[in-house]
């Protein structure tokens, strides 16, 4: 088992526990336990699976189970994305194994990156989403509970499977998909009309950083990806769940706590997102400095979207204030001293 996949699974479990403790009327505990538990069980199975074939089969089982558990979308709609992801991944794996021209290896890379994007629900394969749907039954389960472990396992195993030429293509495609999600997600979080959709796009933007980090193939890239995933599970997810409060608390507010929330979401210093961005820029500079420039421009796009999400959070009082304080404290601690997280993952 990869140490980082174990760490990411533990973080996802902690995120689920947080959601359970601070669940509201719009986040039924039963749905949370069933859907989130299924996601965590699948994440554990993915982490311990010895081959990618088994990982793909676990994904298929989880997709069918998640679709059968129900939600606002019909079974047919919920079933499509996981099955497509599984098929694309399986064809990619098949292309790795067969004999043939070198171009097959590159097509295998396309299959693996495309399958990963479909499985998580990243652009250009986003899952159908309804803002009013209970979070555990929405596609966000794939983004926050299954996605981190899947991405870590898939990228690590794919890099060892692919030949050098195809491995470079794999990394380049990861960077391409990452940039697409960064820009589109950040712009979507800023410009889309509904706040629920804006939160969803902000997850894509963060995932863009993760995928870019994995694509950089340097140690700092992997470290940055891990820290951004930490931020997704321990900052963006809890804040998103807390933002789905009753309507009377959701009046746009610009208090100091809202600005702190915006800062944490934007990856400002001294929160964990800042450390991740510094590592990512360092890796990009080592690899090809103009890419670092593109990343900096992309990272600036986080600001307006994050300020919008912070304002839309509404008034922060009572239990919500306690939850927000815990989230910010955890992210502050990880931002100031991220070394333990990286050492556990052995990156």
């Amino acid at each position, binding site marked *: 088992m990869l140490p980082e996949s174990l760490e990411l699974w533990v973080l996802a479990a902690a995120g689920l526990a947080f959601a359970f403790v601070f669940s509201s009327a719009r986040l039924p505990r039963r749905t949370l336990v069933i859907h989130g538990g299924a996601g965590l069980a699948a994440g554990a199975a993915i982490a311990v699976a010895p*081959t990618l074939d*088994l990982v793909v089969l*676990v994904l298929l*089982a989880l997709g069918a189970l998640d679709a059968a558990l*129900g939600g606002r979308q*019909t*079974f*047919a709609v919920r079933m499509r994305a996981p099955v497509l992801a599984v*098929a694309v991944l399986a064809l990619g794996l*098949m292309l790795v194994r067969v004999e043939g021209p070198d171009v097959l290896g590159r097509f295998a890379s396309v299959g693996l990156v495309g399958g990963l994007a479909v499985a998580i629900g990243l652009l250009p394969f986003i899952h159908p989403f309804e803002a009013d749907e209970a979070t555990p039954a929405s596609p966000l389960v794939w983004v926050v509970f299954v996605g981190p472990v899947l991405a870590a396992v898939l990228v690590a195993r794919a890099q060892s499977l692919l030949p050098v030429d195809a491995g470079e293509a794999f990394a380049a495609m990861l960077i391409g998909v990452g940039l697409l999600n960064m820009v589109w997600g950040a712009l979507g979080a800023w410009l889309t009309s509904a706040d629920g959709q804006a939160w969803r796009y902000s997850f894509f933007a963060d995932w863009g950083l993760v995928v870019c980090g994995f694509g950089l193939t340097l140690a700092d890239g992997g470290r940055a990806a891990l820290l951004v995933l930490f931020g997704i599970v321990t900052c963006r997810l809890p804040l998103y769940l807390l933002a789905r409060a009753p309507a009377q608390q959701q009046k746009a507010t610009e208090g100091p706590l809202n600005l702190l929330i915006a800062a944490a979401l934007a990856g400002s210093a001294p929160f964990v997102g800042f450390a991740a961005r510094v590592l990512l820029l360092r890796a990009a500079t080592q690899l090809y400095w103009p890419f670092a420039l593109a990343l900096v421009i992309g990272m600036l796009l986080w600001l307006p979207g994050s300020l919008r999400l912070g304002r839309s959070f509404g008034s922060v009082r009572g239990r919500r204030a306690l939850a927000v304080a815990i989230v910010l404290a955890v992210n502050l601690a990880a931002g100031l001293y991220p070394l333990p997280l990286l050492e556990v993952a052995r990156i």
Partner: protein
Amino acid sequence: MVWIGAALLVLADGKRGLALGTALAAAGLAVLTWVDAGPVTALLIGTGGLLAAARRLMTGVSGWGVMPPGSTPRIILSVAGGLVALWIALGVMGGPGAALRFSVLTAVGLAVARVLSSGVAEVQLSAASVVALGIAAAATIDPSTSSLWPSLVAAVIAAGMGWLPVSARRAA
């Protein structure tokens, strides 16, 4: 045999047609994997497919439902999909095991197309069972890795798909 089974999955709406398509595809994959991976893997794939087919006979729309009115796009998909898979397996890819490569490409490709194009849960579950068996068969292409565990897991998934509680309201 796999192509006929997968094409039947694409063309049929009734439970008999879907069950026969699943059984044929699974049987074909089992025969092909016997050669490379041995009898245990083949038996697992075959058993998983037969259990999935048997379960499908119990639920779903009655009858065969093969090629109902408006099936022209599905017929074209079945034929064109098979031809493209044949070209890739024989013309683009190389090495031994062309029949298995063609079968995996056909089974997975047509079954996924059926999942994406159908709004009926029973149809999707049958197609997903074939996808699982196709993945297990693809694992036997590489002789250096063990295909036993993927075959076992795929057989369990294929057989279990039909038992998932899918209400008519959600499947609509």
